[in-house]
């Protein structure tokens, strides 16, 4: 049987150049893992992380490494059976959390500085205590309203923290629940493959026409 080859120099070069152009134009997407997802949130002075594979399975004893912005390693630990790992905030900068789930699986999550600063209980408490002390020194005449005000503020913050914690946790969960491929992605990919078959057939028919 004589086989019709669809490939010669010309037909190879053109699609290659087009593909190259597309590759250059497309913005760099941060693409990771087959995939493992790690995400993190803060509660008080603790950072909680959760790691899972794209099938929804939790990463058991994956290695979590926490890096400072300058690339120093701050903390290293392993996730438990539920894919969770938590640590106290080592310093108030951006933290890069890297998950190594073995066998070439790697995930990354960056915890922003304002996320960390916004939730630190310790600091606000410290500041409040200092403020109260200051107020006492300065306004010996009117100590009651000043301390009262600070107390109320601290109380509200504490209560809010407590009430919001489960909410934040749930938001985080919901946000990362649907990380698997959506139906549109799947159909899109299949469409591309069909399209490529079409292009190949078209190129071939043109060549045969000539």
């Amino acid at each position, binding site marked *: *049987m004589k*086989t*019709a*080859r*669809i*490939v010669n120099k010309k037909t*190879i070069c053109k699609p290659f150049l087009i593909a190259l152009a597309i*590759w250059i134009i497309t913005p760099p*997407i*941060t*693409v*990771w*893992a*087959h*995939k*493992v997802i790690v995400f993190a949130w803060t509660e008080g002075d603790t950072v909680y992380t959760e790691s899972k*594979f*794209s*099938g*929804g*399975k939790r990463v*058991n004893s994956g290695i979590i490494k926490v890096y400072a912005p300058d690339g120093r390693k701050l903390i290293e630990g392993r996730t438990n059976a539920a894919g969770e790992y938590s640590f106290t905030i080592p310093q108030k900068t951006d933290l890069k959390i890297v998950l190594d*789930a*073995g*066998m*070439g*699986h*790697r*995930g*990354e999550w960056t915890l922003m500085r304002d996320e960390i600063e916004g939730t630190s209980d310790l600091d606000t408490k410290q500041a409040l205590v200092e403020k109260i002390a200051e107020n006492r020194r300065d306004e010996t005449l009117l100590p009651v309203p000043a301390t009262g005000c600070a107390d109320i503020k601290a109380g509200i913050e504490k209560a809010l923290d407590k009430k919001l914690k489960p909410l934040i946790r749930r938001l985080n969960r919901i946000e990362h629940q649907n990380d*698997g*491929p959506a139906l549109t*992605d*799947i159909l*899109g*990919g*299949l469409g*591309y*493959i*069909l399209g*490529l*078959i079409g292009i*190949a*057939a078209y190129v*071939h028919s043109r060549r045969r026409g000539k």
Partner: protein
Amino acid sequence: MHISEGILSAQVLISGGVLTAAGTAIGLKKLDYDRIAQVGMLSAAFFVASLIHVNIGPSSVHLILNGIVGLLLGWAAFPALLVALTLQSVFFQFGGITVLGVNTVIMALPSVVCYYLFGPLLHQKTAVAITGAFACGFTAVFLSSILLGVSLVFTEQNFWAVSSLVILAHIPVMMIEGIITAFCVAFLKKVQPELLPGFFK
């Protein structure tokens, strides 16, 4: 089975890219026009198969189907898997663009090897053919696991530890793929034997 971005060293990435380019060139050169649609269909099957997760064993693994793809396509497995892996990395964030070469070699090279190892068995008696097909599906994943270990050797400390872990994790997948490949071949032998390799020889 997909290696993530940011793990491998440049040398490994580049050699993976070169091997993939060579394999794809050979694949395209050997590809005959009448089989374009078949290549596309198998590429699509591979593309979707990785969404089927097998949650047995220590890690989360998914079907690969590189055995049946190789058996039916031979060298054309390279372009077929390259296309599917590219789309997977863009749409699903499996693997990544820079590791595309390495990932393609990991999955497509065993396909080609299996094509030469088990292709000739398919036109024997049914029992032999089906056993061969099972072995094909099984071996393809096994070889892929070894290649995965090899490509991680330069970054992870221990080749044997990594490889045995990968192989262990993929044993269920090997079994399932062997069965799937056997069924496919049994079906094709009955319904459309001209799709099997070497039919015209």
